[in-house]
């Protein structure tokens, strides 16, 4: 049976992992390769490197970061943040990324999804959707661009369907309402998108405790769940999370 995936996200700036990370177990604090190594040993299923760098010089450092992480990691590696062109995607893939994640640039020019899918295959293209509830009931969700700052004037379910048709291989769906709150994933949002597409949906935003993951895989019908800070802080080890999921009859890979 296909396992539900647990994905760790590393927010990287200037070659260092950021987001208020507590690295007391690591000799080299903030080093993405060291953190990736730890997650790999714990049994993470996939890694996402999210580049939150602004300058051109620092973006060159990103390729080095990808290469260092990819050198010793033999699980899928996705790279997102600031991928605007086919050349950006090619640089990430050449450095060792298996998948690229597109967000604002795909909203501005949806044909970018198709062009990258034609070059590298749909399995290499993730479309990231940042969505916010339009109603308290959670039956309509609006898409936001530019790290959640600008309304894209689109419905999340409809945009996910279009992304699939244009060649996306997976959807990375982040709830802006829940991101950073630790109040749990937005299961209504996740289920609405997951039911609308046949490609896998990765739920993101709001992971706080073990039970949140159980809910997003059952009520939310997610195929994968992504988290950052709860793993970085070692509040929850990947292994403990997977054991909890397995105890709740959710199929996972225990490495």
């Amino acid at each position, binding site marked *: 049976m296909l*396992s539900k*995936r647990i994905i760790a996200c590393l927010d990287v700036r200037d070659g260092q992992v950021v987001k208020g990370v507590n690295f007391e177990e690591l000799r080299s604090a903030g080093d993405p390769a060291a953190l990736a190594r730890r997650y790999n040993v714990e049994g993470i299923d996939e890694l996402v490197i999210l580049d939150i760098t602004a300058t051109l010089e620092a973006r060159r450092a990103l390729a080095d970061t990808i290469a260092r992480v990819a*050198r010793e990691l033999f699980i899928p590696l996705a790279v997102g943040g600031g991928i605007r062109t086919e050349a950006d995607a090619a640089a990430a893939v050449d450095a*060792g990324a298996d998948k690229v994640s597109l967000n604002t640039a795909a909203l501005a020019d949806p044909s970018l999804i198709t062009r990258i899918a034609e070059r590298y*295959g749909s*399995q*290499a293209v993730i479309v990231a959707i940042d969505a916010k509830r339009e109603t308290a009931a959670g039956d309509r969700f609006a898409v936001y661009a530019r790290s959640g700052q600008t309304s894209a004037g689109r419905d999340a379910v409809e945009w996910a369907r279009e992304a699939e048709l244009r060649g996306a*291989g*997976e959807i990375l769906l982040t709830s802006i309402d829940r991101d950073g709150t630790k109040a749990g994933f937005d299961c209504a949002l996740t289920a609405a998108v997951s039911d609308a597409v046949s490609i896998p949906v990765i739920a993101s935003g709001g992971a706080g405790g073990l039970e949140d993951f159980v809910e997003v895989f059952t009520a939310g019908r997610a195929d994968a769940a992504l988290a950052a800070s709860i793993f970085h802080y070692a509040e929850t080890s990947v292994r403990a999370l997977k054991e909890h999921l397995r105890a709740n009859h959710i199929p996972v890979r225990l490495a």
Partner: protein
Amino acid sequence: MIALIDYKAGNLTSVRKALAALGAEVIVPGVPGELADAAGVIVPGVGHFGATRALDTPWIDGILARVGEGRPLLGICLGMQWLFEGSEEAPELPGLGLLAGRCYKLQADGVKVPHVGWNSLAIGRADASLLDCVADGSQVYFTHSYVAPVTGDAAAVTEHGGRFAAVVQRGYVGGVQFHPEKSGDVGLRILRNFLELAG
């Protein structure tokens, strides 16, 4: 020296990296003649079966010549499907035909297609050297929509909407539907088994 065939069906970086980590010397031949010294041949690939059109007669002859010398051949993902007679994804295009059967699309019977993620291997044959030291139930990383049939050549089977061949081996000819280069220690073990077969 292992020859990794680049027929522009996806990116070879990950496969090269995994082989390098295992200490293998890898070449990516530019012309079929460069296959002559290969101790083993790997045909990787993701995407549409139509991409295998680039593996034309000179490449096929070069690969079959190595197989005829007892050099092992490993197909990965699309490369494994190419070992069969063909695929309904591109019905007009023949496969290499070393293995009997045709590839077909996974049925979305209550499951998502494409099949993306970690799934388990049900090992059905103890004699398949590709699976030396690989435990039954081990999980590996898949990403595909088409599959190869379960025949006598299947060494391990995976289930997603139906059962399909996850590992095939017939003598020196082997294939894996998943990505060993992305399947952690289990995947590296399978690549190591292939390298040992290549000597």
